[in-house]
């Protein structure tokens, strides 16, 4: 059996896809589901551009087979709408070419959700999984810190 039907929850909607067993999640997202937000850049788990959230945690979608994600809930950049982190990425110019942005946004979003009190070392550790070649990272780090601070003040 080279292909099979896999059930996935994508951005809150249940989908059935018929995929090759060898197919990675990024391929399914982009080519079967038309969700181009996950970017291929190394296909080796080294750069984070293809990051999606699987059950709320960031995962390199180039590094997981689609069949491994049966019945899991996947969030892509297309599924994040009007979040504070996106708004702040825009406001702080934490974006240049934008190719790494979906990965960074999802990673940062998950960081803030799972570690709402993250200190600088934790932020660094999380952000080190993604590469940005344009900005020099300062704006991205600032943005994450800012959103963590904002949330802290709101509570």
């Amino acid at each position: 059996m080279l292909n099979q039907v896999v059930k996935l929850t994508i951005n809150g909607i249940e989908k059935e896809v018929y995929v090759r067993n060898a197919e990675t999640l990024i391929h399914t997202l982009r080519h079967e589901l038309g969700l181009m937000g996950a970017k291929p850049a190394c296909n080796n788990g080294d750069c984070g551009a293809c990051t999606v959230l699987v059950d709320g945690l960031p995962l390199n979608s180039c590094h997981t087979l689609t069949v491994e994600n049966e019945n899991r809930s996947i969030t892509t950049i297309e599924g994040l709408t009007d979040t504070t982190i996106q708004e702040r990425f825009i406001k702080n110019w934490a974006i240049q070419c934008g190719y790494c942005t979906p990965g960074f946004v999802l990673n940062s979003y998950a960081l803030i959700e799972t570690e709402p009190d993250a200190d600088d070392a934790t932020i660094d550790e999380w952000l080190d999984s993604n590469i940005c070649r344009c900005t020099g990272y300062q704006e991205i780090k600032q943005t994450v810190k800012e959103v963590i601070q904002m949330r802290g003040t709101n509570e």
Partner: protein
Amino acid sequence: MDTQNLTYVGKDIPRIDLKDKAYGKVRYTNDESKPGTLSAALHISTHAHARLKHVDVNEALKSPGVHAVITGEDFPYQVGPLLGDRPPIAYKKVRYYGEPIAVVVADQEHQAKYAAGLIKVEYEPLPVLQSPREAIKKEAPLIHENMKDYTVMVKGVHSVPNTNIANLTKIRKGDMKTGWKESDITVEEKFSFKPADHAALETRVSRAEILKDGHVYIYSATQGPFYVQKLLSECFNIEPGKISVETPLVGGAFGGKGCVQLEFIVYLASRAVGGRMVSLVNTREEDLISSPVHIGLEANVKLGATKNGKLKAASYEFYFNTGGYSDMGAGMSKAGAVDCTGPYKIDHVHCDSYCVYTNMPYATSFRGFGHPELTFVMERAMDLLAEKLAIDPIELRLMNAIKPGDTTPTQTHLNSSNIGDVSSCLRRIKELINWSEGQSTTTQDGKVRTKGITSFWKTSSTPPNATAGVILIFNIDGSVNLNSAAIEHGQGTKTVLAQILAEKLQMDMKKIHVTMEVNTKYDPHQWKTVASSTTYLAGRAVMAAAEDAIFQLKQIGAVALKCLPADVVVGNGKVYIKDSPEFYVNIKDVAVGYKFPNGNSIGGLIIGGGSHIVRHLTPLDPETGYGKPGPQWTVGAQAIEVEYDPQEYTYKIIKAATVLDAGKVINPNAAIGQMRGGMYLGLSWASRETFMFNEEGRVLNPQFRSYDILRASEVPEYLVDFIETPLVDGPYGARGIGEYGVIGMAGALSNSLSIASGSSLNQLPLTPEFIWESVEGRND
């Protein structure tokens, strides 16, 4: 020029492309897919230098889904932007590890890749050259045996047949004998670094389709859609008008997408399958080694100065390592020569700059185009001179800073417009990095904190006829579409162009719609989006197009307002009478034809067009280098502060600072972002980026896992400031700034670490291992 009362220029206008990017809505080249598109995959060389005895494609052809396999035999001709030296697919021999040997076209990408793995290549290995110093020796084996038959594509490329020299640029200024005689003190040093990479996050990608009428459609992640059109036209003998090139937003470039490579291959692939649409997407590994890289360099430099620190003579030998093919390497070796002295007045200059073939991945333009490279060499030499003279490094630079009235190495006369203010940049960086607290201090835990400084300059090595155009089309609501072939690859160029237009038309930014994608069929010609030249070239074109539109708006507006065109002005969405603004007509009522109350109409559509071309540039004299290589020199100064651990030979980069004379900053946020990002790229390169090769010339680290680059936790605090000495013919006085953040980083980092470690660090990257070797005297 009145730059005091500006409404849009000089303001932190929000970038127009960020919202779509933050929400994942932007489509890059590889995000568009058309049903029925075939996929291509490369089979690349496993040898760095070898004759191809046999390429067996039979198994691949039989593999499921495969439509065609092509090899160098399908197009045995050389192409190249400056010197035609490279077959798009290796022909008869390979000259670097990773060179494309065959291309498989199949229904699915995985089928193409599988079949590419079935191709069997029989190699006859040849001696491998890994150093340009070695490669220029008389007895060195030739990498290009038939160089004398190669076509020179651009005047001014001087290859030397029967050697490995693809280009030689000579600079002869003043008289070296006099220069050395006037020098009390000299320093002489050698420098080197191997090739590295741009590593843009979006790998290079191209698609091609050939219609039955011969029209060729190319979709490509490129910095130069018109350049792709030009080179494909020259290479395949197709009328340029029959080649359409489309480029959406680009996912980072850094010069690496200013060349043409995959476009040749994918055109051949489409041709092999009857013109069907074929897509070719680089894997990261291919993008790092098969596609062109960041150039390497080996250099000798000698400086002479009086005992008071006045520079008198400078002599340079640059051996640029262009790898297997010259591509833009032949241009970078020239660019390195024309600005070899850095921003210093030196009357006696001698430079031989060689572009040398080796068996390494081939080089193309990298952000800074030869200048991060020459600046590393020159600025290390300046620090060595300062040390020998016992003069403060900043004082030495201030003392020799080039000024209006001086001449460049190619004897271009500088005036108060065409060069920025080096001294002001140096004085400001001194404050920014807190130089007065001392260049070296020791922390309580035994670490050493040191500061390193550089100053730098760069002119844009554009062709003497580099041009850009802009078309403005008005909508029925009075808003305007801005069309230009400037590529948005992250730098914010589209926002900056819109700001210039908003200023010129005095129109709300919201009323300006910039077409983000570029299509050679609809957009006016632009040379490329490279060389920090777009704000200048396309910016001037915007101003010209706006003036054209204003002229037309005034003509029709005046009729509507029953006055003369000279009586009216354009602004705030209106054409109004200068001294009685209450008499006006809205642009929306004029821009697509003005209708009188009785129904009669005049005017038609208002379409503003404008262009700009660089002027008075000349090729260089082949013997002396005399000539004008670029329109103007942007200058700056940079500094680095490191904390060095003498026990471990490791270091942390604490601060990185840039002061740039930007002429006029059009958008401060954008400019600061460019400087920070530039510093990051320069520091990542200088501190750790390099390809590693084994004895056979095989690249050992063609992945992000092993090709190490700086990550978020490793970056310093960035400090940025600007000086503004207007460029008289720049848009609102602006100079090019895009590349400049990179230029001085390697020099500043090596200067600070040389002081910290007590050993002159003249190689890159500056890894702890290299520092240890230098301190322990283990390197040669």
